[in-house]
Protein backbone atom coordinates (compact mmCIF):
# COMPACT_ATOMS: atom_id res chain seq x y z
CA UNK A 1 0.00 0.00 0.00
CA UNK A 2 1.03 3.55 -0.68
CA UNK A 3 2.63 5.45 2.19
CA UNK A 4 2.63 8.80 0.42
CA UNK A 5 0.24 11.58 -0.47
CA UNK A 6 0.39 12.95 -4.00
CA UNK A 7 0.23 16.75 -4.11
CA UNK A 8 -0.86 18.24 -7.46
CA UNK A 9 0.48 21.73 -8.08
CA UNK A 10 -1.05 24.12 -10.62
CA UNK A 11 -0.03 27.48 -12.06
CA UNK A 12 1.89 29.59 -9.53
CA UNK A 13 2.09 26.63 -7.12
CA UNK A 14 3.69 24.52 -9.84
CA UNK A 15 6.10 27.31 -10.65
CA UNK A 16 7.05 27.78 -7.00
CA UNK A 17 7.96 24.12 -6.61
CA UNK A 18 9.22 23.59 -10.14
CA UNK A 19 7.19 20.42 -10.69
CA UNK A 20 3.50 19.67 -11.37
CA UNK A 21 3.29 17.07 -8.58
CA UNK A 22 5.23 15.82 -5.56
CA UNK A 23 4.79 12.70 -3.43
CA UNK A 24 5.10 13.33 0.31
CA UNK A 25 5.50 10.53 2.82
CA UNK A 26 2.90 10.59 5.62
CA UNK A 27 2.38 8.24 8.55
CA UNK A 28 -0.33 5.61 8.31
CA UNK A 29 -2.46 7.60 10.78
CA UNK A 30 -2.35 10.60 8.45
CA UNK A 31 -1.55 14.27 9.02
CA UNK A 32 -3.56 17.45 8.83
CA UNK A 33 -3.63 19.24 5.50
CA UNK A 34 -2.04 22.23 7.25
CA UNK A 35 0.93 20.20 8.48
CA UNK A 36 1.45 18.68 5.04
CA UNK A 37 1.44 22.09 3.36
CA UNK A 38 3.62 23.79 6.00
CA UNK A 39 6.14 21.03 5.52
CA UNK A 40 6.14 21.57 1.76
CA UNK A 41 6.40 25.36 2.12
CA UNK A 42 9.49 25.01 4.30
CA UNK A 43 11.27 23.26 1.44
CA UNK A 44 9.93 25.64 -1.23
CA UNK A 45 9.94 29.17 0.16
CA UNK A 46 8.15 30.68 -2.88
CA UNK A 47 5.22 28.38 -2.23
CA UNK A 48 4.14 30.04 1.04
CA UNK A 49 2.50 33.16 -0.48
CA UNK A 50 0.74 30.99 -3.07
CA UNK A 51 -0.72 28.72 -0.39
CA UNK A 52 -2.14 31.74 1.44
CA UNK A 53 -4.44 32.53 -1.53
CA UNK A 54 -5.13 28.97 -2.65
CA UNK A 55 -7.95 26.51 -2.14
CA UNK A 56 -7.34 22.82 -1.61
CA UNK A 57 -8.87 19.68 -3.03
CA UNK A 58 -8.68 16.25 -1.39
CA UNK A 59 -9.57 13.30 -3.59
CA UNK A 60 -11.51 15.51 -5.97
CA UNK A 61 -13.48 17.54 -3.38
CA UNK A 62 -12.71 20.97 -2.01
CA UNK A 63 -11.92 20.99 1.71
CA UNK A 64 -12.44 23.96 4.01
CA UNK A 65 -9.69 24.91 6.40
CA UNK A 66 -6.44 23.15 7.05
CA UNK A 67 -7.55 20.71 9.72
CA UNK A 68 -8.78 18.10 7.23
CA UNK A 69 -7.00 14.76 7.66
CA UNK A 70 -4.83 13.48 4.81
CA UNK A 71 -3.88 9.80 4.70
CA UNK A 72 -1.53 7.66 2.63
CA UNK A 73 -2.94 7.17 -0.87
CA UNK A 74 -4.87 10.44 -0.83
CA UNK A 75 -4.43 13.04 -3.56
CA UNK A 76 -4.31 16.73 -2.68
CA UNK A 77 -4.51 19.51 -5.28
CA UNK A 78 -3.40 23.10 -4.70
CA UNK A 79 -5.62 25.57 -6.61
CA UNK A 80 -4.32 29.13 -6.82
CA UNK A 81 -6.90 31.75 -7.88
CA UNK A 82 -8.35 30.73 -11.24
CA UNK A 83 -7.54 32.64 -14.41
CA UNK A 84 -9.12 30.58 -17.18
CA UNK A 85 -11.36 31.66 -19.97
Amino acid sequence: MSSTVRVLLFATAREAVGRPAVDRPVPATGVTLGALLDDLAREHRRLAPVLRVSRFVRNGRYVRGRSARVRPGDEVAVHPPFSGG
Partner: protein
Amino acid sequence: MSAELTTRPISVARVVAALADPPSGGVVLFLGRVRADRVGGRTVRALFYEADPTVAARRFAALEREAVRRYGARKVRVVHRVGRLPVGAVSVVVGVAAPHRAPAFAAARFLIERLKREVPVWKTERTGRAPRARRRRPPPRRRGGRRSG
Protein backbone atom coordinates in the same frame (compact mmCIF):
# COMPACT_ATOMS: atom_id res chain seq x y z
CA MET B 1 -24.89 19.01 -23.08
CA SER B 2 -21.18 18.39 -22.69
CA ALA B 3 -17.94 20.02 -21.78
CA GLU B 4 -14.41 19.13 -22.58
CA LEU B 5 -10.82 20.07 -22.12
CA THR B 6 -8.70 19.70 -25.20
CA THR B 7 -5.10 20.31 -26.18
CA ARG B 8 -6.05 20.81 -29.82
CA PRO B 9 -7.42 23.89 -31.59
CA ILE B 10 -11.13 24.32 -30.89
CA SER B 11 -13.34 23.95 -33.95
CA VAL B 12 -16.14 26.49 -33.71
CA ALA B 13 -17.94 24.71 -36.54
CA ARG B 14 -18.00 21.51 -34.49
CA VAL B 15 -19.38 23.37 -31.49
CA VAL B 16 -22.16 24.77 -33.68
CA ALA B 17 -22.87 21.30 -35.06
CA ALA B 18 -23.10 19.95 -31.50
CA LEU B 19 -25.77 22.57 -30.76
CA ALA B 20 -28.08 21.42 -33.57
CA ASP B 21 -31.64 21.31 -32.26
CA PRO B 22 -34.73 21.96 -34.41
CA PRO B 23 -36.72 23.95 -31.79
CA SER B 24 -33.74 26.20 -30.98
CA GLY B 25 -33.83 29.25 -33.21
CA GLY B 26 -31.09 31.15 -31.39
CA VAL B 27 -27.49 30.21 -30.77
CA VAL B 28 -25.03 32.39 -28.88
CA LEU B 29 -21.33 31.64 -28.80
CA PHE B 30 -18.67 33.29 -26.71
CA LEU B 31 -15.06 32.81 -27.79
CA GLY B 32 -12.18 33.80 -25.54
CA ARG B 33 -8.96 34.48 -27.40
CA VAL B 34 -5.38 35.03 -26.26
CA ARG B 35 -4.94 38.78 -26.32
CA ALA B 36 -1.73 40.59 -27.26
CA ASP B 37 -1.33 42.18 -23.83
CA ARG B 38 1.74 44.00 -22.68
CA VAL B 39 3.15 42.64 -19.43
CA GLY B 40 6.20 44.23 -17.84
CA GLY B 41 7.12 46.10 -21.01
CA ARG B 42 6.99 43.01 -23.21
CA THR B 43 4.16 41.95 -25.50
CA VAL B 44 2.66 38.57 -24.70
CA ARG B 45 3.21 36.13 -27.56
CA ALA B 46 1.67 33.05 -26.02
CA LEU B 47 0.06 31.82 -22.83
CA PHE B 48 0.18 28.43 -21.20
CA TYR B 49 -3.21 27.13 -20.01
CA GLU B 50 -3.59 24.30 -17.55
CA ALA B 51 -6.55 22.77 -15.70
CA ASP B 52 -7.33 20.37 -12.92
CA PRO B 53 -9.25 18.00 -15.18
CA THR B 54 -11.33 16.09 -12.64
CA VAL B 55 -12.53 19.13 -10.75
CA ALA B 56 -13.00 21.13 -13.97
CA ALA B 57 -15.16 18.41 -15.54
CA ARG B 58 -17.44 18.36 -12.51
CA ARG B 59 -17.80 22.15 -12.42
CA PHE B 60 -18.47 22.30 -16.16
CA ALA B 61 -21.27 19.76 -15.79
CA ALA B 62 -22.79 21.61 -12.83
CA LEU B 63 -22.72 24.94 -14.69
CA GLU B 64 -24.33 23.39 -17.75
CA ARG B 65 -27.14 21.95 -15.67
CA GLU B 66 -27.65 25.34 -14.06
CA ALA B 67 -27.75 27.12 -17.44
CA VAL B 68 -30.45 24.72 -18.59
CA ARG B 69 -32.46 25.14 -15.40
CA ARG B 70 -32.16 28.92 -15.08
CA TYR B 71 -32.50 29.98 -18.71
CA GLY B 72 -34.28 27.16 -20.47
CA ALA B 73 -31.27 26.56 -22.67
CA ARG B 74 -31.78 23.39 -24.68
CA LYS B 75 -28.20 22.64 -25.69
CA VAL B 76 -25.04 23.79 -23.98
CA ARG B 77 -21.43 23.16 -24.87
CA VAL B 78 -18.24 24.36 -23.21
CA VAL B 79 -14.78 23.60 -24.59
CA HIS B 80 -11.61 24.89 -22.97
CA ARG B 81 -8.26 24.46 -24.59
CA VAL B 82 -5.13 23.80 -22.54
CA GLY B 83 -1.43 23.86 -23.36
CA ARG B 84 0.57 26.55 -25.09
CA LEU B 85 -1.64 29.00 -27.03
CA PRO B 86 -0.30 31.75 -29.28
CA VAL B 87 -1.87 35.20 -29.42
CA GLY B 88 -5.15 35.02 -31.32
CA ALA B 89 -5.80 31.36 -30.50
CA VAL B 90 -9.23 30.54 -29.12
CA SER B 91 -8.83 29.42 -25.50
CA VAL B 92 -12.46 28.80 -24.66
CA VAL B 93 -15.79 28.46 -26.44
CA VAL B 94 -19.15 28.60 -24.69
CA GLY B 95 -22.17 27.78 -26.84
CA VAL B 96 -25.87 27.84 -26.02
CA ALA B 97 -28.88 26.95 -28.15
CA ALA B 98 -32.30 28.07 -26.98
CA PRO B 99 -35.71 28.61 -28.57
CA HIS B 100 -35.26 32.40 -28.40
CA ARG B 101 -32.34 34.77 -28.41
CA ALA B 102 -32.76 36.50 -25.05
CA PRO B 103 -32.22 33.34 -22.97
CA ALA B 104 -29.43 32.22 -25.30
CA PHE B 105 -27.55 35.48 -24.65
CA ALA B 106 -28.24 35.31 -20.91
CA ALA B 107 -27.12 31.70 -20.58
CA ALA B 108 -23.90 32.24 -22.55
CA ARG B 109 -23.01 35.24 -20.40
CA PHE B 110 -23.82 33.29 -17.24
CA LEU B 111 -21.60 30.39 -18.35
CA ILE B 112 -18.50 32.40 -19.16
CA GLU B 113 -18.76 34.54 -16.00
CA ARG B 114 -19.17 31.54 -13.76
CA LEU B 115 -16.56 29.52 -15.64
CA LYS B 116 -13.97 32.20 -15.00
CA ARG B 117 -14.77 32.31 -11.30
CA GLU B 118 -15.40 28.66 -10.58
CA VAL B 119 -13.55 26.35 -12.94
CA PRO B 120 -9.95 25.43 -12.07
CA VAL B 121 -8.18 26.64 -15.19
CA TRP B 122 -5.11 28.85 -15.12
CA LYS B 123 -3.10 30.81 -17.62
CA THR B 124 0.58 31.53 -17.09
CA GLU B 125 2.98 33.35 -19.28
CA ARG B 126 5.81 31.31 -20.73
CA THR B 127 8.88 32.84 -22.25
CA GLY B 128 11.75 30.83 -23.68
CA ARG B 129 13.22 30.25 -20.21
CA ALA B 130 11.49 29.69 -16.92
CA PRO B 131 7.71 29.93 -16.85
CA ARG B 132 6.39 33.09 -15.25
CA ALA B 133 3.05 33.48 -13.65
CA ARG B 134 0.53 35.83 -15.13
CA ARG B 135 -1.58 37.94 -12.83
CA ARG B 136 0.53 36.78 -9.93
CA ARG B 137 0.20 39.04 -6.92
CA PRO B 138 3.46 40.26 -5.45
CA PRO B 139 4.27 38.25 -2.32
CA PRO B 140 3.05 40.21 0.71
CA ARG B 141 5.68 42.04 2.66
CA ARG B 142 6.72 40.26 5.82
CA ARG B 143 4.96 41.73 8.77
CA GLY B 144 6.45 39.28 11.27
CA GLY B 145 4.88 36.30 12.96
CA ARG B 146 2.15 34.27 11.32
CA ARG B 147 -0.58 36.86 11.33
CA SER B 148 -0.58 37.23 7.57
CA GLY B 149 -0.91 33.42 7.06
